[in-house]
């Protein structure tokens, strides 16, 4: 199988996440009233890394939680399937919070739409900002990220592979072509 | 003057089938022979066809008076001649019940008015078919009743049945017994067995029929009276009758085409057209019925023609009315299953469907012979056709045989020398 072209290695990803963590605090004008949500399951890892980096730099514990969007997907009815999903029960309130929603790759924007719906089912945040490690383009929704790790314009026959140490044992980012049969 | 000349048909006599011409005059069979000629007579070409004595059905329901929406004497008579029948006997479960001379007379008059086949009323055994007090059998006999029966309802009280057999015999009437122990039936709607369990429909045990059948045999034997058993459907019933006949009991019995053609597998479709009383039984019963017909245990074939309105059938199985509209399918079914099925020959079929009922009820007809009344039926035995209830002449389209392929199409029915039906 085509393993693709490595665009970022572990160190590069580390540097990018560090930059993003500072940008988040900068935009928020400090760490007050902030909480992080990561779209399960890679987005959650990104969110927890960002929270840890902010904690290290600013000495605060930012509330962070994964969010399951299974029940909010827009293809449940058209696709007619029963989602694998779990209930979202964060140990903190989102009311009046500045929520930073984190994901690994931003593509169509559908996941983000679902995630926003999921967040609003939990309460009414003051604002929701979007952080992504990679923006590959190809939007189908009016969605724009506030914090972007790397812009990688990719065509529809290309796949962005994100590896994260928590899952694959190493961090890396690669691009490859879909194998045509 | 000669009226009709039936040429070239295979004629079914009591003991043989022979090609012959039949000359009909004055409502009688004037002459039977080869190459007959008759000036001015209407000629019916029966070449390749078979001439039977007019069929006699001693068990039909014509529904008039009271239930004309199901059938009436005119529509029932028209259906009868379309089915090859020249004489039919109608059961008394009308409204009012045919339990008195006035109703018997009414039916006879309406039949005469209709002028198709001969209709013989059967009077009730008990007033209102309630099973309590005897109906006026003598007066009914005078008005034209040919037998008595509470058909549709059993006479549950054995003492009443005993009295009925005794009293009816004074007038030369025979009791036709609908055998059904109501306590054992207990609301059942289909034969009790594998299929009733499968369909979850309440079963009617064979014992319900056989227990009362035994009672009638015992009464007839003890009293030395005649009794006729209606619509026998079970293997056990055939066996009881066989033993009784061997002992010399004066019992006769009938069965219907649905008891020797269908098994209760058909009920699992929940099609209410399969709902009939007694219920359609199992394969071993079907075989026993055929054997009973073959060895003479069962004397005759009747239809128990029970027309119903569509609305009475197109409901939940439990709520549907019991009965099959059978008079137009009786001959082809009997011919296909019994003659083509190798159970009996044409002479025996004519015996079961014509001569025997005539004998049991002392009616004219029943055989083809010179001087005999000219009740005849001509059928094409080689024509294969599909039963289509929409084409029934009867108002009742309720049949479980819809779509079935059969042989033996009735082409022409002649009553008292007049053509009353032509296909």
């Amino acid at each position, binding site marked *: 199988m085509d393993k693709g072209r490595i665009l970022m290695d572990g160190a590069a990803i580390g540097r990018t996440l560090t930059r993003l963590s500072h940008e988040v605090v900068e935009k928020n004008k400090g760490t007050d009233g902030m909480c992080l949500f990561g779209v399960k399951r890679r987005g959650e890892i990104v969110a927890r890394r960002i929270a840890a980096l902010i904690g290290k730099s600013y000495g605060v514990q930012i509330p962070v939680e994964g969010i399951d969007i299974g029940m909010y997907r827009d293809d*449940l009815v058209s696709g*007619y399937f*029963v989602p694998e999903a779990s*209930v979202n029960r964060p140990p903190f309130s989102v009311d009046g919070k500045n929520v930073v929603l984190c994901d690994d790759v931003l593509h169509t924007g559908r996941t983000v739409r679902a995630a926003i719906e999921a967040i609003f089912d939990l309460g009414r945040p003051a604002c929701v900002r979007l952080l992504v490690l990679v923006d590959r383009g190809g939007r189908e929704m009016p969605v724009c990220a506030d914090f972007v790790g790397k812009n990688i314009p990719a065509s529809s026959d290309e796949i962005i592979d994100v590896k994260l140490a928590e899952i694959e044992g190493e961090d890396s980012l690669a691009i490859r072509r879909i194998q045509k049969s | 003057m000669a009226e009709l000349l039936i040429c070239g048909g295979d004629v079914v006599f009591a003991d043989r089938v022979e090609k012959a011409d039949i000359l009909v005059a004055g409502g009688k069979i004037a002459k039977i022979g080869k190459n007959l000629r008759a000036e001015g007579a209407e000629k019916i070409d029966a070449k390749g066809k078979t001439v039977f004595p007019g069929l006699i059905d001693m068990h039909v329901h014509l529904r008039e008076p009271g239930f004309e929406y199901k059938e009436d004497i005119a529509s029932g008579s028209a259906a009868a001649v379309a089915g090859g029948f020249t004489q039919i006997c109608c059961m008394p479960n009308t409204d009012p019940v045919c339990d008195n001379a006035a109703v018997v007379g009414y039916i006879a008059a309406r039949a005469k008015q209709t002028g198709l086949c001969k209709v013989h009323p059967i009077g009730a055994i008990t007033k209102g078919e309630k099973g309590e007090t005897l109906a006026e059998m003598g007066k009914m006999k005078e008005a034209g009743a040919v037998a008595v029966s509470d058909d549709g309802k059993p006479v549950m009280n054995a003492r009443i049945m005993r009295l009925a057999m005794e009293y009816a015999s004074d007038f030369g009437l025979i009791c036709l017994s609908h055998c059904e122990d109501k306590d054992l039936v207990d609301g059942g709607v289909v034969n009790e067995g594998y299929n009733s369990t499968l369909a*979850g429909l*309440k079963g009617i045990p064979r014992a319900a029929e056989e227990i009362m059948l035994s009672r009638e045999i015992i009464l007839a034997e003890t009293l030395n009276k005649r009794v006729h058993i209606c619509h026998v459907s079970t293997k056990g019933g055939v066996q009881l009758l066989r033993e009784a006949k061997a002992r010399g009991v004066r019992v006769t019995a009938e069965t219907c085409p649905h008891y020797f053609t269908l098994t209760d597998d058909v009920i699992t479709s929940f099609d209410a057209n399969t709902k009939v009383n007694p219920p359609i039984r199992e394969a071993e019963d079907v075989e026993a019925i055929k054997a009973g017909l073959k060895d003479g245990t069962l004397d005759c074939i009747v239809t128990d023609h029970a027309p119903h309105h569509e609305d009475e059938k*197109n*409901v939940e199985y*439990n709520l549907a009315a019991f009965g099959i509209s059978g008079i137009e399918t009786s001959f082809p079914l009997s011919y296909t299953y019994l003659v083509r099925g190798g159970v009996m020959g044409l002479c025996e079929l004519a015996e079961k469907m014509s001569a025997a009922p005539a004998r049991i009820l002392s009616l004219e007809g029943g055989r083809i012979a010179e001087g005999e009344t000219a009740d005849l039926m001509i059928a094409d035995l080689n024509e294969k056709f599909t039963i289509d209830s929409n084409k029934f002449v009867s108002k009742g389209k309720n049949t479980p045989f819809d779509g079935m392929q059969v042989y033996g199409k009735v082409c022409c029915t002649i009553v008292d020398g007049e053509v009353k039906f032509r296909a």
Partner: protein
Amino acid sequence: MLGKDLLGLYETSAEDITLILDTAVGMKKLLTQNLKKLPHLQGRTVTTLFYENSTRTRCSFELAAKYLGAGTVNISASSSSVQKGETLIDTGRTLDAMKNDVIVIRHPMGGAPRLLAKNVRASVINGGDGMNEHPTQALLDFYTMREKFGSFRGLKVAILGDIKHSRVAKSNLFGLTKLGAEVTMYSPATLMPQGIERMGAKIASSREEALRGANVVMGLRIQLERMHGGLFPSLSEYDKFYGVSKEHLKFADKDCIVMHPGPVNRGVEFTSDVIDGANSLINEQVLNGVAVRMALLFLLCKNKQGGNENNG
């Protein structure tokens, strides 16, 4: 594949049964996590048309429909209205004209759901018809058994009680034999229907024989009117000779599960220590019932959508 309706398990294949059970797994997961609202039946209407009293089956169907986003309508007709009121076909046509999508029918007479299904456009689910079938109850029983034992192959299921009048026993029998389980039945002779062995059941000659080595012990409700009909003399006599107590349960496999379609007559079919004992899954059955009915509604409506592309 599943058709328009679910009328009984006699005509449902093992594959379809398995499909329903598999789908129910996801449904139960969502239910237990309190994630009940799925959008699949949004804009659709599910009507429960009950000619017999029922709380649990109707409630279970209604919740299942609601959890899938459907609107629900409940029609209660007394048993007596079956004979006097509007005909079933006319009622069905009226519901059809109101654009119902699914009709769940319970009726005191066998075959009524089939009659309805033949005459309406809506999907018809048999919620119990006379002595015929109660397929969704059996499906939830299967779900409960499979969840506990993983497979049906060689599973010994003992069914005790009023077999003759039980649509539950028959639906269980039809399904379980297809799935590879062994079904043994025991009841007073007056409550045992004819020909049930030919459908694959083994008839036990004693309570102990029925229970011996059983993995599943299923009791069926004894209805008082049967006693009044003379089919057995008294409840206490029934309990003594046909009921199951903790003592009797010792004959069964030690890991057996105790099931009952409910409502239970305590001290008749089972003693209280059996109903409330460690082996009892009677309450779990109720939850599984909602999951299985969700799965069924989901699948029937999916079928009806007709070849919708699956981009999930």
